[in-house]
């Protein structure tokens, strides 16, 4: 088993940060906020995956980041191209440039698994999304296994594991004095050459503590429940606030719009941007004539659950949910996807 000492790891990371873009979990925001707040986000600093300058900025002791790794592959906002006027007065389109190679360090296994879902949607079917593809290609994922499953996590119920190496290029597992290192892919291999790994015999890997596993509803149960009043009852509580889709590692809905910005220097920049969107928004599916097939809140809420567990598997042959539990923690009105799944799973197939 390969092993790296903490100091060596830090040195390697510091080097990496010099050479390329290093993204890693880091604490953001003011230290002192409302420590006792009922809103977990307001209690203190939150950890995000952000570009860091070196190992010192990396947060090592964190549960899961406030936002998933998705923001680095499908940014909250990205410019697809700018529109300029050429010398002949005709429009010229300039597509966004390629990003530099980067290392995504410290990605949790569930977030990495989320990328698998995004891959299926964005790349799995022709034509592929070139922007996503570039970022994906240029990034090497160094995963950091969870020592345990946290409150609200349920990756083990949806086929994942806190120390799964399936979707990363390299996986680090914390052990006494350093990290056990699993190099998973060729891409990982290339990166690992500079790491200075030691080979340690008989390294014992800790067994992460798991949360209780529960059974998921079957396809039949999903089908049979579509028109159930149950959704109305869950929807009663929903605020349509969209937090769930924004913190989700696999939600990929986007909006595209053109915008014209005049810089303070008087330069007029016209660009086409795309930005995150959420199926929970009231006007998400309004049609030109004003018709809205998902005008009701419970229809939109239902759409989200079905998208994860029914539509994505059918349309893209991937599991739509990785069980990271972010939506559970963040939902201000405690709509708990686990509760919904278990409620449905208990139903007799019609």
């Amino acid at each position: 088993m390969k092993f790296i000492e903490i100091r060596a790891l830090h040195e390697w990371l510091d080097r990496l940060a010099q050479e390329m873009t290093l993204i890693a979990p880091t604490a953001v925001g003011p230290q002192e906020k409302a420590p006792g707040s009922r809103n977990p986000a307001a209690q203190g600093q939150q950890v995000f995956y952000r570009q860091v300058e070196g190992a010192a900025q990396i947060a090592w002791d964190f549960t899961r980041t406030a936002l998933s790794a998705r923001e680095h592959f499908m940014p909250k906002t990205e410019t697809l191209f700018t529109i300029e006027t050429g010398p002949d007065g005709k429009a010229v389109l300039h597509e966004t440039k390629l990003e530099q190679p980067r290392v995504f360090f410290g990605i949790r296994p569930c977030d990495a698994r989320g990328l698998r879902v995004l891959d299926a949607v964005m790349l799995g079917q022709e034509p592929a999304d070139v922007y996503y593809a570039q970022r994906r290609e240029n990034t090497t994922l160094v995963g950091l296994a969870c020592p345990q499953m946290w409150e609200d996590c349920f990756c083990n119920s949806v086929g994942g594991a806190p120390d799964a190496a399936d979707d990363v290029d390299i996986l680090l597992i914390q052990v006494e004095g350093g990290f056990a290192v699993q190099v998973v892919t060729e891409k990982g291999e290339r990166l690992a050459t500079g790491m200075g790994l030691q080979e340690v015999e008989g390294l014992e890997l800790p067994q992460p503590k798991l949360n209780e596993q529960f059974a998921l509803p079957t396809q039949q149960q999903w089908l049979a429940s579509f028109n159930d009043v149950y959704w109305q009852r869950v929807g009663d509580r929903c605020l349509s606030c969209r937090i769930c889709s924004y913190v989700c590692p696999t939600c990929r809905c986007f909006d595209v719009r053109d915008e014209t910005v005049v810089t303070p220097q008087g330069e007029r920049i016209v660009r086409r941007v795309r930005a995150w969107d959420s199926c929970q928004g009231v006007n998400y599916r309004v049609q030109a004539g004003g018709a809205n097939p998902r005008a009701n809140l419970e229809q939109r809420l239902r759409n989200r659950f079905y998208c994860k567990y029914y539509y994505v598997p059918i349309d893209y042959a991937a599991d739509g949910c990785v069980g990271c539990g972010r939506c559970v923690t963040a939902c201000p009105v405690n709509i708990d996807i686990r509760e919904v799944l278990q409620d449905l799973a208990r139903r007799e197939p019609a």
Partner: protein
Amino acid sequence: MIEDIRALARELLEKGAVECVIGYEVGPTGRVRPAFVYEPGEVERLIFDGRCDQNLVTYLTRRNKPRKKGEEVPTTAVVVKPCDARSLRVLLNEHQVQRDKVYIIGVACPGMQNADGTPELRCTRCDQRVPLLYDALCGEPPEVPTVRDAYEDVQQIEALPLEERLAYWLGELDRCIRCYACRQACPTCFCSVCEAERDDSLWVGIADRIPEKAFFHIIRAFHQAGRCTECNACEAVCPMGIPLSLINRKIAKDVAQMMGGYRAGESDEPTPLVTMLTGEEAIDEIH
């Protein structure tokens, strides 16, 4: 108090006086959340204590619309704390809720608590223990020595030099992901299409950049001027932990100062910010 609420809820549901009672319950993982009770047999789910800090009035706007065109609007009972009652008053003033379609179960408020059991900050500066309006009052008003809000938190920010204040806000707003949860949780944000989400918006794009984020929050704050009841719902739901209520409280403080102590939702008078449109004089004073 819990028993009073349950008994009242049961009576209302049994009589058919209301279709649904909105209150609080404890979810399966022990978190307190809004409860929608339709059957008299389910009233035992209802609870009330210092954890019930969500503003349930938010749900009324939605329930006040007929589900299908022409259908009658059902009557809903809702558990309302003193702060929530002010939001409700604003909604009533602005025709978003029909008074006869809502049964107000007022609760004498013990003050809300943080997760660690300490009193919520906003409750320490609130001097209302009994809602300003209700159809029935549950619980005995506790005598909690409280001070009327002096906006110390706002004053602290105001005291910062301009650059620091700007830096503070840009730092906070940088985390905003434009999820609009603040808006959705806000009882008095009820536009059918938000200014910040209009396809044809001339003023704010969809991008997740600081100018757009700041613009969204500023628009929201201005739209809340004279209407925000400082219920803190926006801040309580923010997944990024942005101190949103500070923005609104800053405006509320200014409104109170300029409009003779006006506090939103305390009377059925419309907000003076609409009715006092005498532009010229003010311009005169500036120059």
